């Protein structure tokens, strides 16, 4: 029973991911006074790409073909860590957050290598910029999670979520606010959203993530796009689970699960609206201001860790 719920949650994260992208695009279009495409558009695009043939550059090696596959595998595995509507996840209670962060790292590592294997300037450019941003983003990511882990005395995601669930909503500590701030900034950087990266650009001066995908086409591109959609969805779900788990089902009753699922949809919609507002209002940072952005996130997360000393005692 429990394992079925866990698998359903994982499937929700994986299959619902393109929808999240579609809805964000729709919100952004509305904010810009456009009608915007259908929210189901990303699914159509995935199917279209999956039916096309795969093109590989003549100079590339097996790494080029393996990279998208491994990226997809890692992202799915990360999604298996995150509780959505029920306080459990396939790997949630066994693996801890260090594993989660480093699995994302493995996916990024393979995609960067795939980009370099294309043999063009764009791949190297994307990989080089991604290397800078991701190595700096890892600090606030881990430190923000460490602050929560210290508060809850647990290192596994479900343990942390279960602890927060038992707290009073109005009894939130400074640590939570600081950790949320830093992790929200990290989510923007990790998923390549504004103001760190512009997901819609194809201008070589500005693109980071898109630069790495330039040589990919067909099913490989579909896998990468799907993986980055899953990553976005999983990161939003992680924020919700860590900082707003109230309403999540803990028992096994069907009604509890259904209401928890509805609540999850509402919460994720709030985050999507926030994201599209940020994306429409903020300008992309210059490349060399991104370290400052992440430096602020690191400082905030360090404060969160330091404040745990007072909150805990």
């Amino acid at each position, binding site marked *: 029973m429990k394992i079925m719920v866990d698998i359903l949650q994982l499937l929700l994260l994986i299959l619902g991911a393109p929808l999240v992208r579609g809805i964000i695009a729709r919100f952004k279009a509305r904010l810009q006074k456009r009608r915007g495409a259908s929210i189901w558009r990303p699914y159509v695009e995935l199917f279209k790409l999956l039916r096309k043939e795969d093109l590989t*550059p003549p100079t590339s090696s097996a790494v080029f073909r393996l990279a998208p596959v491994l990226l997809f595998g890692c992202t799915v595995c990360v999604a298996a860590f995150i509780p959505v509507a029920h306080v459990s996840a396939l790997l949630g209670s066994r693996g801890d957050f260090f594993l989660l962060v480093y699995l994302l790292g493995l996916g990024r590592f393979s995609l960067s290598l795939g980009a*370099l294997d294309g*043999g063009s300037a764009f791949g190297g450019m994307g990989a080089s910029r991604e290397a800078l941003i*991701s190595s700096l*983003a890892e600090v606030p990511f881990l430190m923000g999670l460490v602050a929560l882990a*210290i508060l809850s005395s647990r290192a596994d995601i479900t343990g942390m979520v279960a602890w927060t669930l038992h707290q009073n909503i109005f009894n939130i500590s400074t640590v939570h606010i600081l950790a949320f701030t830093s992790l929200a900034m990290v989510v923007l950087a990790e998923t390549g959203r504004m103001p760190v990266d512009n997901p819609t650009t194809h201008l070589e001066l500005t693109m980071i993530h898109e630069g790495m995908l330039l040589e990919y086409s067909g099913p490989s591109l579909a896998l990468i796009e799907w993986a980055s959609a899953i990553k976005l969805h999983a990161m939003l779900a992680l924020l919700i689970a860590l900082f707003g788990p109230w309403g999540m089902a803990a028992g096994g009753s069907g009604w509890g699960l259904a209401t928890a699922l509805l609540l999850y949809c509402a919460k994720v919609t709030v985050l999507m609206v926030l994201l599209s507002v940020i994306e429409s209002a903020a300008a992309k940072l210059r490349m060399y201001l991104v370290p400052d952005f992440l430096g602020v996130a690191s400082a905030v997360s360090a404060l969160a860790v330091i404040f*745990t000393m007072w909150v805990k005692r």
Partner: protein
Amino acid sequence: MPMGPIEMAFAYLLSVLGVFVPAILIVSRGARARRLAITLILTAGVAGGLVAVSSFLWQTTSLLDLSWATPFPFSFAVDRLSAFFLLLVCAVAVPVTIFASPYFDLHYSEQQRRWTWAFFSLFLLSMIVVVTASTGFAFLAGWELMTLVSAALILIEGDSPERRHNVFVYLLMMHVGAAAVAGCFFLFLPYSHSLDFGMIRAAGAAMPGGIRAAVFLSAFVGFGAKAGLIPLHLWLPRAHPIAPSPVSALMSGIMLKTAVYGFVRFAFDFLGGGPWWSGYVVLVVAAFTGLLGILYAIAEHDLKRLLAYSSVENIGIVFLGLGTSLIFLAHHSLLGAGLALVGALLHAFNHAFFKSLLFLGAGAISSSTHTVDLNELGGLQRRMPVTGAAVLIGCCSIAGLPLFNGFVSEWLIFRSFLAGSSLVDAKAGIILPLMVGILALIGGLAAACFVKAFGVAFLGRPRSAEAEHAQEAPLGMRVGLWMLGAGCICIGILPGLLLRPLVSLVQVLVPGAGVPEETLSIAYIIPWIAAIVLGTSALAALLRPRARMARTWACGLPGLTSRMQYTSTVFSKPIRSVFAQVYRPDRKVEQLPTDQPYFPASIAYQSVRTTSYERVLYRPFVELFISLAHRLRRLQTGNIQIYLLYIFLALVSLLTFLRFQR
């Protein structure tokens, strides 16, 4: 004392490496003698591995006593700590030997090969002596032999002035370190009355605090110089690039670990944890070592220098674990101490595997392209797929990615930092969790560094004719590489193989220490994660059966050349600009002609990275030393009567001294 099978195997190992192999190579020349010698080295490596495993299981104490042959007590014993490091030495030495055989055949003349193999064997012997010695004299003898033989191995390849200078720096720093290590033993002597390890251990707890602190600091400096802790790391990026690749692999893979062994032996076994501040000192130095090491590594485009700096970084990670363990010990929190120590020892073991793998990979690259400059390489994965795959495993491991061995040890150290929050002491309770940020930054930069190293060397288009015509490495090299690569994956996916034994080691080393049960669950979860990741990847691979070749996108223009690719230098540029304060490059731009700044005929650009502490820390020392030497030179008049006078004065003062001693 009757000799059991373990003692016999150990005696075989010592006599083969120390006597038979050098003797065979000196007495007879030719390929057959050399093949015999290599086979003997391999059998000795296997024997050493068996000795390590069996003495770990049965906890033998004394192995061999050679005091009858030497003026000082000279004996060997293999406790669990020694057995672990003996296993490390032998497990890495065997693949490196297999790799080295075709490598030396390709690169060296007959004469050079004989000497190289003789010294190679002695080098292995010296490291085995260091980790199994049970008297101070045997330890120091092995320690000194290790330094001298490795210097000889570097000098076999040639003796240009630059090489001599670098070897001189190496020898100098090693001897400063050796002096500090010898100092540790002498500090023990008044209390233990013997250099036997058992007596030293017994004396360790009873010594006054000041002496304990002095021993600790002296050991930290002495072993830190060998391990390459910043600012004592200067020799590492100098010695490694000029050493032949298999020797670099041994030096970086194993020799640095003997320093870790020495430090653990002194700080944990003999002293049972240092003074209360010791952990913080180690932690701060280790954090600087790790961060600066990886920042320097990422800026390098010479693959071997890059690897040398990354060794500095990894030693930093090992000492982060050791420092954390000392802090826990000082607070009598034995579970945390055990966890951090297990992490540090496992990282030392893992580093031995992936770093020697990468150095051997650099050797394979240099023997097929004659360069290790990343900016000249590229596209090697298509040309040397087997070598490339092994090197990729090494890169993933060193970047600390899950499913590879580097991750497991870094994870344990991360968890020990997290466990630090439970300490009552506010200082430790804040500092240790904050170290997560430091290790995260080190890990992130290491991933960036090795994306660059592998991506630029092996992927994309070749950047030079040599890389274009590269050939796959010979069979022996590939076998050596893959043995190490298999080790990396094996420990990475089944960490339980080493975790359980390490926990029992730590329990013996630090009485009462252990590891929180929940952290051992990593051994069960990693295989599951591997299954999920690989299973999903396999399913995803089914989604796209066919592929067609098409030209790389060149913005619609014909003729994409390899010069348009990102080079190693450009790849690291963003990181170098963000951390410009660390590098402080000396830039020089020359435009000609100078009177027409907007229409230059030629522009020359030069950027030299200076290591600022070299200027700040070492220059004053060197200058002081030279000026002292100049003053001392006045004593050296060259007049024989004056020298006789010195001898006479020395004699008189000694006699007077003895008279007053009575």
